[in-house]
């Protein structure tokens, strides 16, 4: 009996004073340096609602890229939003041709493992023809070398036939 009664116990250890330079007269916390560490597991799954922009994802499954146009001020948002944040008018759905221009990109040789993607991973921001603001997504099929990727190059929306874990992954960008 004793510490072994604690199912989640990882360790008990003596911590060092992290600021000894502040304590020339001795560690004021010396009676509090014994530390216990336990394991605490949490695991959740959410039933997530994609809200009023769900139609965007439904249309991706139909291989269409739709976004929203504001009937009030005429702005076409690259990423759809049900309420135009420029003039607070309720927007209308609009299909775009899916062609555009590369505005910015990054080439990741490190990607957190929770993202199931191949490396190097190219994240890009694209100005789609017919939209006033940008859209962020992966750039694929850019050729043999990431050196070929240039700001200003023409790109297009492409769709996959593979199974995906999130509806946004039904699409990506490719050089046009």
């Amino acid at each position: 009996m004793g510490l072994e009664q604690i199912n989640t116990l990882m360790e008990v250890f003596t911590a060092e004073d992290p600021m000894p330079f502040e304590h020339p007269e001795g560690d004021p916390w010396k009676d509090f340096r014994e530390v216990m560490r336990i394991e605490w597991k949490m695991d959740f799954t959410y039933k997530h609602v994609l809200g009023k922009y769900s139609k965007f994802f439904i249309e991706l499954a139909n291989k269409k890229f739709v976004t929203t146009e504001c009937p009030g001020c005429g702005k076409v948002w690259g990423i759809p939003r049900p309420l135009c944040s420029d003039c607070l008018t309720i927007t209308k759905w609009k299909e775009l041709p899916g062609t555009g221009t590369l505005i910015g990109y990054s080439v990741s040789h490190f990607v957190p493992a929770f993202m199931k993607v191949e490396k190097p991973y190219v994240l890009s921001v694209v100005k789609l023809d017919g939209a006033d603001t940008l859209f962020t997504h992966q750039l694929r099929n850019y050729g043999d070398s990431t050196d070929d990727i240039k700001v200003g190059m023409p790109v297009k929306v492409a769709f996959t036939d593979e199974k995906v874990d999130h509806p946004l992954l039904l699409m990506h960008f490719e050089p046009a």
Partner: protein
Amino acid sequence: MEILNKERRVFVLGGGISKFAAERVDGNMRDWMNEAVLEALEDSGTQIADIEHSTTSYFSDHFDKQLKAGAIFHDNIGMCPKPNVRVEGGGGTGGLAIRNAYAYIKSGLCDSMIVFGGENMGRQVPSDVAQQFIALASDTDWEVQVAGFYIAYYAMMMTAHMDKYGTKEEQFATVSVKNHRNAMYNPKAHYPMDITVEDVMKSKMLSYPYKLLDNCLLSDGAACIVFSTAEWAEKNAKSWGSKPTVELTGTGCGTDFMRMADRPFPDPGIIHFRGKQSGAQQAYEMAGVKNPREDFDCFEVHDAYSGVELVTYEDLGFCKPGESGKLAEKGVFDLGGDLPTNTSGGLIGFGHPVGATGVGQGVEVLRQLRQEAHPKRQVELNAKRGGMDSHGGTGTFCAINIFERRD
């Protein structure tokens, strides 16, 4: 802003830092907050019993797996039943908390406020999980799902800056060299290092154009500042009159769309921090700053990545758009230069325990204006004014605050 009562002024009485480090296994967030508070009370010569209000500054509920942690920090230091409020704006949380102290004291809601900020930056979970928690600070329906994460976002901003202005990787590498070097004279810093531009360039490529040494680090730690009116300080603070008097003279806040993609294109597009431009304008106007490069003796800026520091110079008006790289190379922002930035080491050298970061910037500026910094990082006082800039997301929340020495 005309309604602000000019007779009622807000002073910075004292500050404290609990060491920034990779993993503080000697305690948890509560313990670090206590340490920072004790130091700030001693530095200001105040008693907690006299302080009327507190503000809590921390960002993530996930890392500490504790909702309304502010209640715990507040009761740990004997502040109950006095009022407390939590401020949150991602990486800008600490800067917003200082602004909150200004608003509460200026309005007369209280005459004194203690601001404590800290973060447990998740070394307790695997780094992959920590990255996931941080990614949740971007749009979870539109950005996280396309493997968007912070290094990749900032790298996109920087490639666009490089394309537009010709900014070079070697130029932003100098920021990392400077900030790691400044941290060598800050014993509470997480990552002091004597490195060269070549070391930065040769470090592991994480997300082009950013290499490992261009990044700030996840740190544990806490920071605290005590603010009050002059009348309150005269009555309650032993430091009043014995230490140089420092006043909070300007505060500004700006924002931008959560998703970079939604920002007005092409200006600011994905290149500039519009929230910093407007926030700085407000703060400068309040403090009477006309030419920031001359009107400040030091400035702590939010160097989440080395290139971010360069873009920030431009958006805070230290130089014209596109000029920052060349000026950084010339040493304009080094200790001894025109305007030393991140004398503490910044996020890259001092560390980035999110809720503590902006508050820690305030402690650094206070130390500089009182000429209490380590002699090797102490700046020369001319304007007797120091600034700080803190932001969350990719510039979604920006807070700019200004301290001035009055004697």
